[in-house]
């Protein structure tokens, strides 16, 4: 008889404590949506920044850009031949 009584008290206590726990947890998490939203916004912003930076890195490391920069710096792989069809004076009077 005593055992059953203890068991009932225990189950009752467990039910009450779980209910209270659930209520506390739900109340705590109910406002966490705001933080989740903020976190998602932040992730998206980093993703965007990452994509923009990747674009810049790829543009900078492209052979097209490197060739352009090399030309500007004076590197050349070919001899630029110039053909002068008419004779030019050594000095031109102003």
């Amino acid at each position, binding site marked *: 008889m005593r055992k059953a009584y203890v068991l009932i008290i225990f189950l009752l206590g467990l039910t009450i404590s779980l209910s209270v726990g659930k209520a506390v947890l739900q109340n705590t998490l109910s406002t966490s949506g705001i933080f989740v939203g903020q976190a998602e916004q932040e992730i998206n912003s980093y993703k965007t920044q990452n994509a*923009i930076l990747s*674009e810049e890195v790829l543009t900078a490391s*492209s052979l*097209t850009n490197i060739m352009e920069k090399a030309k500007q710096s004076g590197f050349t792989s070919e001899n630029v031949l110039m053909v002068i069809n008419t004779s030019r004076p050594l000095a031109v009077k102003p």
Partner: protein
Amino acid sequence: MKWRYPLIFIFLVLLFVLIIARLFYWQVVKAEMLSGLAQDQYGGLIRIEPERGEVRTSDGFPIVANKVSYLLYLNPTQIKDKNQEVQVLASLLDMPKASVSAQILPDRLWVKIKSGISASDKGEIEKIKLPGVGFEEHYTRFYPEASIAAQLIGFVGKNQEGQDMGYVGLEGFYNRLLSGKVGYLMESTDALGKPIILSRKPTIGGSNGSNLLLSVDRSIQFLAEQKLKDGIEKYGAAGGMIGIIDPETGNILAMASSPSFAPQEYWKYDESLYSNPFITNTYEPGSVLKPLVMAGALDAGLITPQTECDICGGPVSVSGYDLHTWNDKYYKNTNMIEVIQHSDNTGMVFVALKLGADRMIDYLTKFGFGQATGIDLQGETTPSLKSRSAWYDVDLATTGFGQGISVTPIELLTAFSALANNGKMMQPKVVTAFENASGEITKVPSVVKGQPISEKTAKVMTEILVNAVEKGEAQWTKLPGYRIAGKTGTASIPVKGHYDPNSTIASFIGFGPVDKPKFVMLVILEKPTTSIYAADTAAPLFFDVARNLLNYYGIPPSE
């Protein structure tokens, strides 16, 4: 009094039936509608657009990637001074005022003004704080190497439903793989529209597109494009193309063609420029076909390199047609090595007649002519071989020197690669592996397409071609110290039933170094004007690219 009990009982039963019917109506008949309404109220399905896969060259560099761009929209109800807003937006977006003004309809809450705005431009516009202006983020195709390999890659346009779709080249061929799958996220929100963390469920389906890992070497592609551009300018050609393949694997190392288009602004170019001429254009190959015909005759045991041509002392008459050499020079009793060296048409008529129509068709078929090469690019053309009954003696004779037969450059390059790979012909391919959204890599194996000739024949033919480079018309442009096998081809262009005497298609095909070939290359110049001959145009361009390739691979001279 007793009648009251049954009455109340019937009334209660009817009441319950009514309630059950009503419950059935709401919970079964209208369940879907109510469920939808409820979902709309506490959240809903969020469509997650997949990111399109990248296209990477063999060094892992993405020649096609995705970049963030923005769509600028307006909420006309929030605009205070329409004229001022139109003026500012038109100047910022470089659009006509009338075009901006026409889109601002006062009864709308959302109107699209311009898409494809860069992040930096977006920042500039945001600084001005114009009322009613908003941005939507999108991912669009980005080409770090600009229009490099444009016809090989293809472009991304819109389909009939307004969704991204790949057209031509790799974008067209692998559109489904690159596109990925749309996913959905079921999310519940609170009264303020913020997500409820406890009700969040995993994403339903959906995955980003797979990345394509190409066999194309970025440096070689870049080199080919630059050299082709210079060559076209130098030789006054109408256009041209260069294809380079690894004969051992069938991997395409470069495929350049000009004129081309810029995939980021494809709509500004004529549609005819979208297709890749290396796989779609057909032409009469001319003398570059001679080595393949001769390889067939050697393989069949009908001739040897020392076989003498007993009809080569002058023009050859076949079915009433007189067939001449390209320069009207004739070499009596010339052998097969010299026939290729001099690109002797009469010598090739001799070979073709020895071969006969049946064996000619058989070898051309074994070399892959008349069938698709199976390259993984959208739009490959397959010119068919004439049926056996349509082969007359004169057709057989002219096919010997590459006239009266149509081929695509990719067919020719694939067939020729068999000579460089001990007679084994590989299926050409551009994609070597796929990388899915989880980073798993699936390799694409190389496929042997056939063995048209024996290893011995391939080696003999290679030596004949080395001799052609060393002593032939193009010997002035050869690379000292390197053993390169190759052949010039000056093909006439058929116009209204005859050949145009003033314009040609000049080509050079070859491979090197012959001991362990690293590349087989086909150079084609369309209608060169400085000279109509390949030995003066396509050949020097071939050797210019070859010299750079040998340098790139670090291969020292062997002699």
